């Protein structure tokens, strides 16, 4: 098979590009430690969330110094808790599930994004910085009221967070 010299060069450059793209993802995983939503959490019965330790009470709780865990339930057509109140300059691990259909959990304008699938739990960890507010959108079609499904993350100062009793209910 005859392959033109330019075509060989193009082929080589293409393979370099592909390997470089795979390289960036690999570097992201092992270098800065970008973690994927995966199978780290055990399954849950979406019909009996009130009997589940994690989701019977959607909430934010402190688990260490500057470390917090949030348990979020998506449903037709909203999120619980709302707003999700977290302190500034902290590490927050979000656990997200759905009690009915598949929803999305996207923090607008950021890369904090996960699917909310009934029966499964998405886990993502984010770092907060200054106090601000973020909108949460359901970014997976979930029924006729999909466009009204929104939530909010309020990042507040440490002192305000403590004033609220450390919980976002």
């Amino acid at each position, binding site marked *: 098979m005859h392959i033109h010299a330019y*075509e060989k060069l193009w082929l080589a450059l293409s393979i370099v590009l*592909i390997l470089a793209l795979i390289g960036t993802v690999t570097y992201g995983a092992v270098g800065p430690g970008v973690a994927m939503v*995966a199978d780290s959490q055990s399954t849950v019965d979406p019909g009996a969330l009130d009997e589940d330790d994690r989701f019977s009470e959607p909430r934010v709780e402190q688990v260490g110094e500057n470390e917090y865990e949030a348990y979020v339930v998506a449903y037709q057509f909203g999120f619980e808790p709302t707003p999700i109140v977290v302190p500034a300059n902290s590490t927050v691990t979000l656990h997200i599930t759905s009690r009915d259909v598949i929803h999305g959990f*996207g923090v607008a*304008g950021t890369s904090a994004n996960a699917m909310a699938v009934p*029966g499964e739990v998405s886990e993502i960890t984010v770092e907060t910085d200054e106090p601000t507010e973020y*909108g949460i959108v359901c970014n997976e*079609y979930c029924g006729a009221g999909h466009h009204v499904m929104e939530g909010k993350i309020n990042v507040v100062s440490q002192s305000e967070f403590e004033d609220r009793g450390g919980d976002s209910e």
Partner: protein
Amino acid sequence: MSAAIESEPTFVDKFPDEARVVRAAFMSSFFALLLGAIFGIIQTLHRTDVARIIPSTDYYTVLTAHGVFMVISFTIFFLVGLFTWALTRSLDRPLLNIKITWTWYGLMAAGMTLTGISILAGFVDSIDMSADVLYTFYAPLQAHPLFYAGLTVFIVGTWIAGADWFRTFLAWRSEHPDERIPLQTFMVLTTMTMWYIASSAVAASVLLFLLPWSLGFIDQVNPTLTRTLFWFFGHPVVYFWLMPAYMLWYTVLPKIAGGRLFSDPLARVVFVLFVLLSTPVGIHHQYLDPGIAEGFKFISMTNTMFLLLPSLLTAFTVVASVEYGARQRGGTGLLGWLTNLPWRKPEFTGMMLAGLMFAAGGFSGMVNAGMNINYLIHNTLWVPGHFHLTVGTAVALTMMAGTYWIWPQISNKPIFSSQIGLFQVVLWFIGMALMSNAMHAQGLLGVPRRTAEPEYSGFDYPTMFGGFEELNIQIAIGGTLLFVSTILFLGNLALTMGNPTVSGLAEPLPSPVSGAEDAPKVLDNLRLWVGIALTLVVLAYALPIAAIINRGGLLGPGVGTYPVWVAPLFDALADAATPLLAAITDASGSLLEVVR
């Protein structure tokens, strides 16, 4: 024009029966394009809040119709028409039995009619039927059973089409035992091989889970499992849309440019790579799904990146073939040859612009495939921005441009107006440039896809590349130009059909510069490629699917049913009989209505 050229037969002269099938398939395709375009303009103007003629709850009926009619009916009906032409033309023999050919066409048309009825009934409150589940029909959202049943019949039709082409090829093979598979036939056979592998999963999902569930035979399904089976099919299907465009770029575009395909062997390599790599990548649509291990996502990502290779090779070969054509026409210089190309022909300019946009779509696709940066854009408007460059332009514009070339071959009627055609393809390019660019930009702001009202009460989007409102205007203008372009295309074609038939339109395709004799024989060994493709699929999917079933159960972890089609009539029936009986009655009643 010399007598020799005038006496050259066109496709319809040689194969009138097959040409009739090709025209019928194209007509079905363009009817779907018309419907898809109407729903497209409604949704563009609704989403951007320029004009809202429907309530927002009906937006999802519009969106389902736009998606299904465009990417299932328009693309696949065009494919079966083009492939029937290509196989018959390149084997230079008629199909084995034209009755079988009409049978699969009839099945596809009937199936799509059923599915279309189930979707459009969503607009009519008095009809107890709806399928607002969008093109991806993720459970536990549930459509009317007719939606799933229609899709099944349609896909069975495509399977019989593939069998029809394979049987005709085998008949040719017994008459020509030592010849290489003609290039276009090779493209048909490899693409259909990929399609059989890919569509098996969605068929399993529909027949084992979704259809029985919508009929009430089973109570629940595993949403992650049906979603995974959907994407097993849902990624390779994009190559099923793309391969007709590739066939036109490889075998017709060089001819229009005045030259010949640069390399037949590399075209074969590209199609083989698609057979191997199209399917074991679907999990890249599920990077953000819980319940699937990171390692499986990584395998899918790697395969996806290698899938860039055949498209990068295509970029080289197609440009090289066009340059060869330009130089044959007297073109010189490093870039000066570009002026020696037939830019006034809509079939040429349309395909070239489609190819240019495909390159842009390829780059946004690399972002989608990037497992970590994907978090920024997953399910945002960036994603439809991406696929309106790929399926919405690389495929759709190539199909329209290709029609300007192929329609005279299958009908002996010259195109009504090349000028309108040229204007139309350029208009598509401009409209899509506006719309797609603004969709990508809104996606980066976090604006979600698939929503009737992307502005929210509780927060505003950050401003980056122009504000949300300004981008909305770009989307609305772009969408309007695309709608006008579609109407011009369809109008031009309708007027073409009114033209009298003439002779002398034949445009035979030249053989490549580097022909099939240069291609290693192993490339034609389809059994080998099927074996490797299946191995890769098993490697990519066996463990994830086993893990999903192990975690959630075959029929799901207690997930409910969320029909979008239940209405008062159903409730009344449910009171009288068991829900199961009610569902069956309802479904068969609807079927009967359609049969009548």
